[in-house]
Every structure is written in structure tokens, then in C-alpha cells.
């Protein structure tokens, strides 16, 4: 019996390894806070990577489609029930994640005899001003990290994700044009899926642009836009590449 805790720790470690292995090859997604709104981007098969959650909230992610769907549905249920029983203004990303999604993901991850959720997620909440924008990275084990504004990357492996995040932080600094930003996100996406370095061996801009164009030919670039100023309660709008100027 004394070895049981060690078996449990080992089982959790194995589980972590299993999830990371299953997520390998998942298509990364991004969110960027801009003066006029938040841009979310992923490359998938159409309505598979980037989703509207509520009036001011959106989600992007990678993983098993059935698991993304379960979590998306749970978030939508929680947001609409909260909105109906209180008010739309009471639906906040902090509460949705801190008291709903994160504890449930953690519980599921630690139940070692049940299948874990194969997901890595990114959530966004548009504020009245850019410095009130919230971006949130939600991990498969229920861990999460908040960030005010800026750019956020979700990828299947931590090291490339950190490298892409660092590169985009530098490249996007001071940029406000949505078309330019979307183009840079797609360049980062191509580098991540092709396993390119974000260091000294980073391909030239022309190669990166040609790369994402070729790689997305038979796929759908999914763009979501949370407009800061809207006449309607729902701030989310799905954009085509052409609408984003690409």
C-alpha cells in the first residue's frame, strides 16, 4: 500500500505524456488584441478551430474535435444560463474559467481511469478599452494563465508555443493593421506546423508567406473578430480571408 501514491504520481505523469503525444500535429491557434477588437485565427476545416461563445467571448483551440465540442458546449451552456439568470454583463471569462471550465478539466485529468480531454484552448474577452481585453490560455490539465491584451498562442507542445509567442510579441509590437497582423499569425502558424525555428534559422518573410499560402490551399483559415464597438449585443463576427484583406 505504501507505494500507491507513487503509482498515482507515475500514472499522472504517464497521462501527461499520453495527452501531449496525442496532441502532436494539432494545428495551432492565435488571439491578438488590437485597438478595434480581438482577432482570433486558426487553420482547420471550417467551424472547427475558432468559435463564438457569448456576446463578448470567443474560443480557439486544438485537440480532438469531440473534446473541443464538449468543452465549447459546456462553456456556452454556462454563459447563457448566467446571462439569463443574472445579466449578459455578468458573464465574465474569469468566472467561466476559474469556477467552471478549469476545475472540471482538472478533475477529469486526475481521474486516471477515465479518458482525458485532448484539448489545448485559448479564450478571449473583449473589453471597452484595449487594456481591458482578456486573453486566457487553458491547458488540458485545467491549469490556466490570464493575460491583459497582447498576443497569445496555443500550440500542441510547450517549447514551440513559447518560441512562437516570443517571436510574435516582437513582430506585432506597434502593429495595428488587422491584415498585417493576420498575415504574421499565418506565418507563425506555418513555422509551427512545419517545425521551423523562430531563432536565427527563421525562414525569410517571403518564404513564410509563400509557405502559409501553399499550406492553407486545401484547408480553411478560420478568422474570428470580436469588435470593440458594436451596435448589437453580439460582438463576434466570423471573417473570411478576403474580409481580412488577405
Amino acid at each position, binding site marked *: 500500500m505504501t507505494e500507491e501514491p507513487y503509482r498515482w504520481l507515475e500514472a499522472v505523469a504517464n497521462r501527461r505524456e499520453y495527452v501531449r503525444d496525442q496532441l502532436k500535429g494539432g494545428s495551432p491557434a492565435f488571439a491578438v488584441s488590437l485597438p478595434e477588437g480581438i482577432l482570433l485565427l486558426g487553420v482547420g476545416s471550417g467551424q472547427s478551430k475558432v468559435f463564438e461563445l457569448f456576446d463578448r467571448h470567443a474560443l480557439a483551440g486544438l485537440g480532438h474535435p469531440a473534446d473541443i465540442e464538449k468543452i465549447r*458546449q459546456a462553456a456556452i451552456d454556462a454563459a447563457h*444560463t448566467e446571462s439569463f439568470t443574472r445579466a449578459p454583463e455578468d458573464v465574465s471569462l474569469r468566472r467561466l474559467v476559474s469556477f467552471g471550465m478549469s476545475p472540471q478539466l482538472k478533475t477529469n485529468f486526475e481521474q486516471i481511469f477515465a479518458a482525458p480531454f485532448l484539448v489545448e484552448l485559448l479564450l478571449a474577452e473583449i473589453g471597452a478599452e484595449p487594456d481591458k481585453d482578456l486573453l486566457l490560455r487553458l491547458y488540458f490539465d485545467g491549469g490556466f494563465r490570464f493575460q491583459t491584451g497582447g498576443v497569445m498562442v496555443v500550440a500542441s507542445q510547450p517549447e514551440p508555443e513559447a518560441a512562437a509567442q516570443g517571436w510574435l510579441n516582437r513582430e506585432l509590437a506597434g502593429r495595428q493593421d488587422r491584415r498585417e497582423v493576420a498575415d504574421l499569425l499565418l506565418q507563425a502558424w506555418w513555422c509551427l506546423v512545419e517545425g521551423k525555428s523562430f531563432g536565427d534559422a527563421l525562414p525569410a518573410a517571403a518564404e513564410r508567406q509563400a509557405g502559409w499560402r501553399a499550406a492553407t490551399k486545401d484547408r480553411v483559415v478560420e478568422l474570428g473578430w470580436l469588435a470593440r464597438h458594436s451596435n448589437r449585443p453580439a460582438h463576434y463576427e466570423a471573417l473570411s480571408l478576403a474580409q481580412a484583406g488577405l
Partner: protein
Amino acid sequence: MNPATPIAGDFVSLLAAHKLAALPSAPSSTAPVQTQATTVFAFHYADGILMAGDRRATAGNVIVTDRVDKVIEIDASSLLAIAGVPATAFEMARVLQTSFEYYRRSQLQPLSLPAKVRALARLLRENLPMTMQGVGVVAPLFAGLDQTIHPAKPRIYFYDPLGAQFQAVDYVASGSGSGTIRSILSFQERYGSPHPSQMKLGEAVKFALRLLMIASEFDSATGGVNPATQTYATIKTLGSKGVESLSDEQQAAFLK
């Protein structure tokens, strides 16, 4: 991850799963003095549908307020105009707003127009006990976009308090001032020039404001339109591109 939703994308059944009622009702032996709201109407004009309502709410012979918005945007392609008891009607509007958006977001497609029309009929049927007691009577108007044809075409529906639904071909009105409005609309449609369905936006708005002015002369529960006191109506339009609202300033400009 979450309690199973009995019907996919159905917000009312999600509320029931959480033991919450969309429109709670309790039997009562006596009816309180009710706040009521009248008058609303809708007609086809050249670019779509115009839906308008006065802004008065009354309780018996008391004017409660002259600042009620009785034409409500349910979603980007649906409008609801309420006549009857605001407490019930506003709650119905809130249920519909949340239900339509919940369906669109969860099922990744908008609810069809027939389903939207029936959703309101279902709420009216569920409100039957309150209707039969004489409290909570609602006789709404609904407008939505038929997206099965291109370009999408707006349609108008009206209901009886039990939930029967009917499509209005040219125009419809509801509430205590509706008799006057229907008479004028009928006359204009048959003998007038231009017919309401041929009016441009400016003409249609001016016509709608004048309709409310006349209705308020014959019905004390209908608040009028008075440019001198900056009292205007709630007016929204529904065209193939969706819902638009007309501000007091825009109405004032059209009325000049």
C-alpha cells in the same frame, strides 16, 4: 462535462435541466391592477418591414410611463412588438433573445424562421394559465427573415393570446389603439397613394408617426408622438440585411 441537454440547442430545456422556469406562473384568485402597453403595428414598405410602437404604459387609468420600448430586437434578423402586460412580454422577449442566440452559437447555424415563429407560440401557450386568469395577457407581433429564398425576405406574424400564429400579408396591429391603426392602414392600402408597401423609408416613418398621433386621439392608453416635447415612437426596420433602429433624431428629421 455538463448535465445533458434534453434537446440539442434548446435553451428552455437547458433551463429546465437546471430546474429554472422560463416563465414561472402561479395560480391566483385575484388579479392585481396590471400595467399594460399599447399600441404596436408593422407593415411592409419598399425596403422591408417597418415595426413601430408608442411608448406609453398604463395601469387602469394611470399613465405609468411614456418611455417604454415595445419594439424589441430579438436578434440580428428578428423583431418582436409587444402589446399586453409588459412584465410577461419582456420576459418572453428575454427568453427568445437568449434561446435564439444559444441555438445559433451552440448549433453553429441560425434557427429557421418557422422555428422562431413557433418558439413564441410555445411561450404564449405556456402562459395560458396567466392569460386565463386575466393577468399576463400578451398579444405580440413578430417579424423575421425568411432565409430560404435569396435575397432573404422579411415576414410579419401575429398571434392570439393562446398562441395561434398567423402571417400578415400587408400589415398588422395589436393593442388598444390597433383598431384605428388597422382602419387607416386598410384605407391607405386600398385607396391611398402611395400604398404603404410602395413607400420609401422617409415616407414610411412619417406615415407611422402620424398613425400613432391619430391613434392617441382615440385611445388614452396609446402615447402619442409630440415633437414639441421630444416624444417619439420606437421604430425599427427589418430588411434583407437585418434590423435597423431609428433614433428620435432620425424620426424628428423625417417628420419635418
